[in-house]
């Protein structure tokens, strides 16, 4: 019996079919919820592929919004399913355990969700935030699943490590960043119908200065909403060394003499 508009509701895991892919993974039986390894491999590679595609949005001249939305929906779909399986948690833990200090600084971001938690109260839990992979920086970011309120991302291994791959980009739906949020900026600045955004701007005028020479693609809607800007690859260094704690979350003062990675570790451990 069809219900109208039933699309991809994975509330009933038993009915879930195998994702249709080339090698044709063995479809998990409806009764048993044991995932065949080929299916989960398939799903994982689909997730990796999707995240890479989303990151490539940074590079395109003007990213296709429809494509980005469809890919993001796919990522969310996979994430939901993996969360239900419990494999999501396992994967992120494995990623966290496998990390080691990076040779060079990679894009690191610290996002504070405390201020935003209330705003997201009505939404389904989004434990992860997407962090951008900056092509050319040869980096990846691993997201730790911490408290719901505090999410921290940190640098990790080189991108060539196949296990980690890009499975580390996770989503909250639209923090995939400037793909479409950037397009929003122009009208957000001009529309008075969105006062919340305007007020965020005015509350942190210093941030504008801070990042005046940052590539605008890093300064997206998410930044405005959380009051904390996403930073480019080398901006964290600058901000840690020269600026106050405005750029960082719940952690107290910056310790510029600390190795950046150690500093981030402290944040994670501390939370």
């Amino acid at each position, binding site marked *: 019996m069809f219900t109208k*508009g039933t*699309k991809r509701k994975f509330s009933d895991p038993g009915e879930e*079919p195998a*994702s249709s892919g080339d090698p044709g993974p063995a479809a998990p039986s409806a009764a048993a919820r044991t995932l065949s390894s080929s299916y989960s491999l398939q799903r994982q590679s689909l997730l990796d592929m999707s995240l890479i595609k989303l990151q490539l949005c940074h590079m395109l*001249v003007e990213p296709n919004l*429809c494509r980005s*939305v469809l890919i993001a929906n796919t990522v969310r779909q996979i994430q939901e399913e993996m969360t239900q399986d419990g494999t999501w948690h396992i994967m992120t833990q494995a990623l966290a355990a496998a990390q080691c200090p990076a040779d060079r600084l990679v894009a690191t971001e610290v996002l504070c969700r405390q201020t935003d938690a209330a705003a997201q109260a009505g939404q389904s839990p989004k434990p992860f935030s997407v962090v951008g992979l900056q092509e050319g920086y040869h980096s990846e970011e691993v997201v730790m699943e911490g408290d719901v309120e505090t999410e921290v991302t940190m640098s990790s291994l080189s991108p060539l490590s196949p296990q980690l791959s890009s499975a580390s980009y996770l989503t909250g739906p639209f923090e995939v960043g400037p793909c479409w949020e950037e397009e929003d900026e122009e009208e957000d600045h001009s529309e008075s119908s969105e006062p919340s955004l305007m007020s965020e701007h005015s509350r942190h005028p210093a941030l504008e200065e801070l990042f005046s020479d940052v590539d605008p693609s890093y300064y997206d*809607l998410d930044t405005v909403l959380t009051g904390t800007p996403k930073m480019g690859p080398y901006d964290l260094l600058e901000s840690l060394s020269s600026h106050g704690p405005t750029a960082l979350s719940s952690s107290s003062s910056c310790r510029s003499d600390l190795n950046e990675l150690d500093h981030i570790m402290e944040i994670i451990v501390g939370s």
Partner: protein
Amino acid sequence: MAGPGGGSSDVQWYFSQVKGAMDDDVAEADIISTVEFNHSGELLATGDKGGRVVIFQQEPESKNQAQCRGEYNVYSTFQSHEPEFDYLKSLEIEEKINKIRWLPQKNAAQFLLSTNDKTIKLWKISERDKRAEGYNLKEEDGRYRDPNSVTTLRVPVLRPMDLMVEASPRRVFANAHTYHINSISVNSDHETYLSADDLRINLWHLEITDRSFNIVDIKPANMEELTEVITAAEFHPNQCNTFVYSSSKGTIRLCDMRASALCDRHTKLFEEPEDPNNRSFFSEIISSISDVKFSHSGRYMMTRDYLSVKVWDLNMETRPVETYQVHEYLRSKLCSLYENDCIFDKFECCWNGNDSVVMTGSYNNFFRMFDRGYRQDMTFEASRENSKPQSVLKPRKVSTGGKRKKDEISVDSLDFNKKILHTAWHPLDNIIAVATINNLYIFENKMN
């Protein structure tokens, strides 16, 4: 004049012409991005990625061969849009022509709307085949004569000259879209038109360029909640208050502008429930509608999603009345198609003049026709090999089973770089225009 379409066995399709460069090396600017016949079918316009519009005109039927339709030859070529740079966002605005729509002809000149991602332009295409000579105040070269030297007056005479077709931009409708324009549609009142981008639809008056009315806005207050975009929109062919827009989630909404100024609440919602047997991670992507077209009668509309064409009765919202599988053999290849981005290709579709046949494109330069009455479907290929004048188009077939018959092509041999996204059908005759990447093929049919 429109015959029974391509369906009955009496009718065959013939190659007529091919336009465009012959070499395999395709210049990016030459990629055809839109094809559209005008309302009489005499003119055929194409837009390309380089921002140019080329208009072909059909020659009058030759008197010698009554059955032979006139050829299409270049009538006018002009640069419609130029690349722009958005300094605020440090992004380029492509000059690619996304859509061309003709206005109904009101006088000797022709008018069309062409749009790129951000700006719509109204172009006037007019002919000049006479020139006035013998002005009193001007010399022949245009210099003004000294009025004192004029001793007699004469009446200027019109003399014939070589036909010159001029295209001039009459209106520029700019700065109304934050997102990329995907559709424009002229209203049946011939005074207004709509333009749709990913999140909004605007209503314009053809005479007024400095403002437009927003009639649909699906942008969420929080962009993080965005899960659906507008993919296409069209006005009803004879009800000037009605339009439809399709979404990336496979829904079509019909709106009545009389209901309210902002048509955020649809009058009708057309959506087919998903088939649970076919559900996969790609279900949503392949359900995204790439094109929506009303039938000429206005009773039906057709939608194109990745794998199928659906015909909907406007009176029934729950499911389409007809579904045609374009290339069902691709369903098992969705993962690869996702990887190479082909799954995001936006195929268009079109009706023939009397709404009995629908047509759409596919890969490997194949295009498909579905005869609604005879319940037949045909697959043809637009290729240089079949390009001998008046050569019959041989039906093509993709082998899906294990055994590949002779003349069939296997799914793995399909060339996914050769895609036919844009097709157009002459409104009154059985002439079709099919665009491969950089060539325009014109086919016509005859009764045996």
